[in-house]
């Protein structure tokens, strides 16, 4: 096991008040495994990603408790120098907006060189990296600036910078949301290719189920700061075991779903300052019973590694038709 997150809790400051936004996450990522973290706006998924290497600035929030074991050592207890040696080298990031993630006044070459371990004679290594991310066109063009590239090429460059140091874990947060559909496909294929070639472990954070279902081996779904379902992709896709997951899958538009109304989830996600007492999904749940509002459920076993935070799993599985996504 490469990364083991144990009961991670993170506070975030909104309107001058600290609220608990990540309320106890457990997640494991193995070598060469792609774990998808799905959740909608405000569920805390980006905070988890940033928190993994303590990237949350102190004035915005803090990690209140938990352990993040990377290769056996707890990241949260590392001294600043050891932490810096790990960030960008063993654990790298790729964010949503490639243009805002790059420094507009440095050339692409300069920025990739910055990410390299060995900074002398970088040219051949940079050429190698550019080739591996499909940017052969840029090899040799040392005066190329970020704004001269298209969105897709910028994201390829970002990925290039992220893998330059041959990291063990790559964290991507909505890396394709800002891109066109055709480019999106290419970037996803690139990520998979790199994963296989470099034995990369990947944490892929996104709100788009379709993408995550496509690329991940294991999936975890977040709602209101906690993981409400997780397990191997095939199990979740063929037999989702939480009302929220079912609602999300029912919301996916497609040709097959023609001209029918969606079985949409009503209402909206709760504010962290106003979480209901029992199950946090209770107000919007199709399958709710009174007992659900009493206590927040813990993760129950569905089968093997497939778990769900719902007390009605068995009833749901009996009621819902089997999915064939």
């Amino acid at each position, binding site marked *: 096991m490469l990364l083991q997150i144990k009961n991670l809790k993170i506070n975030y400051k909104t309107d001058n008040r600290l609220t608990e936004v990540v309320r106890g996450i457990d997640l494991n990522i193995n070598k060469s495994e792609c774990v998808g973290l799905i959740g909608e*706006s405000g569920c805390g998924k980006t905070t988890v990603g940033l928190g993994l290497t303590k990237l949350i600035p102190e004035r915005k929030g803090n990690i209140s408790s938990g352990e993040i074991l990377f290769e056996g050592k707890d990241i949260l207890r590392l001294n600043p120098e050891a932490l810096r040696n790990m960030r960008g080298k063993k654990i790298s990031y790729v964010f949503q907006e490639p243009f805002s993630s790059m420094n507009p006044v440095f050339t692409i070459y300069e920025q990739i060189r910055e990410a390299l371990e060995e900074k002398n004679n970088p040219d051949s290594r940079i050429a190698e990296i550019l080739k591996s991310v499909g940017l052969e066109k840029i090899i040799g063009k040392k005066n190329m600036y970020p704004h001269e590239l298209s969105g897709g090429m910028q994201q390829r460059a970002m990925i290039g910078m992220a893998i330059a140091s041959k990291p063990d874990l790559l964290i991507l947060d909505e890396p394709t949301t800002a891109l066109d559909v055709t480019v999106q496909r290419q970037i996803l294929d690139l990520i998979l290719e790199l994963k296989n070639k470099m034995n990369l472990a990947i944490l892929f954070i996104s709100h788009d189920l379709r993408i995550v279902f496509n690329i991940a081996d294991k999936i975890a779904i977040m709602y209101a700061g906690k993981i409400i379902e997780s397990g191997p992709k095939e199990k979740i896709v063929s037999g989702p075991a939480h009302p929220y997951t079912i609602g999300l899958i029912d*919301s996916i538009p497609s040709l097959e779903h023609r001209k029918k109304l969606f079985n949409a989830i009503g209402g*909206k996600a709760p504010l962290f300052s106003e979480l209901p007492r029992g199950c946090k999904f209770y107000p919007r749940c199709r399958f709710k019973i009174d007992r659900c509002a009493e206590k927040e459920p813990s993760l129950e076993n569905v089968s093997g590694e497939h778990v769900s935070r719902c007390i009605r799993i068995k009833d749901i599985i009996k009621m819902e038709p089997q999915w064939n996504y």
Partner: protein
Amino acid sequence: MELLKIDNLHKTFKKHNARAVDGVSFSIFKGEILGLVGESGCGKSTLAKLMLRLIESDKGSIFYKDRDLLMISNNDMRKTRKDLQIIFQDPYASLDPRMKIGMVIEEVYDIHENVSENNRKSKTIELLETVGLGETYLNRLPSELSGGERQRVGIARALATDPEFIICDEPVSSLDISVQAQILNLLIELQRRKNLTYLFVSHDLGVIGSLCDRVIVMQSGKLVETGRCEELFKNPKYEYTKTLLKSSLL
């Protein structure tokens, strides 16, 4: 029955020196949902704005009820706007940040004087309820609403003049999937109930496939393929359409 006929529309932006819309022609029939697909930069948003004269076209015609909208006076166009409306993509940019929700709707009545002054408030509440909001939203500012709620306000604003035709310009692209489904449901129900005609612009083929009767595909300012939705998805003729379909995760 043909509601709108776009004929050889052209628009070039001098500063980009590119042909945003390059000789586009197509028809829209009453009661249908026509999908407009294409990637960013293909010109679909520009086309949407050209159709309602929100940007001036260089050349071409837009026929609505036997009149060429590009030839009528500004005053006549303003009256015609009652029948042709638009919903925008970005719920955060499509509302005046300083305007209360109730005023957003009432302003429409003020401009067109289609509702008498004492009825305006009740009509506004009625309209907000139609889109799934209610009286409690009257005095709120856009910053207090979620993306989905703001989009509902945008839909209410478009409905305030009882239009016949609405351009939906990527109305759900900025929303989370669960909210997207709610808004799509709302648009579908409204279309059925009021027999509206939509031009539905999107880059998301899943959304297009689940809603549209016919589809037109744009690439680099040109219309490259047209067809009935299922036909296009199952038997795309154009290379670009095939690429689009393959890339989408359907």
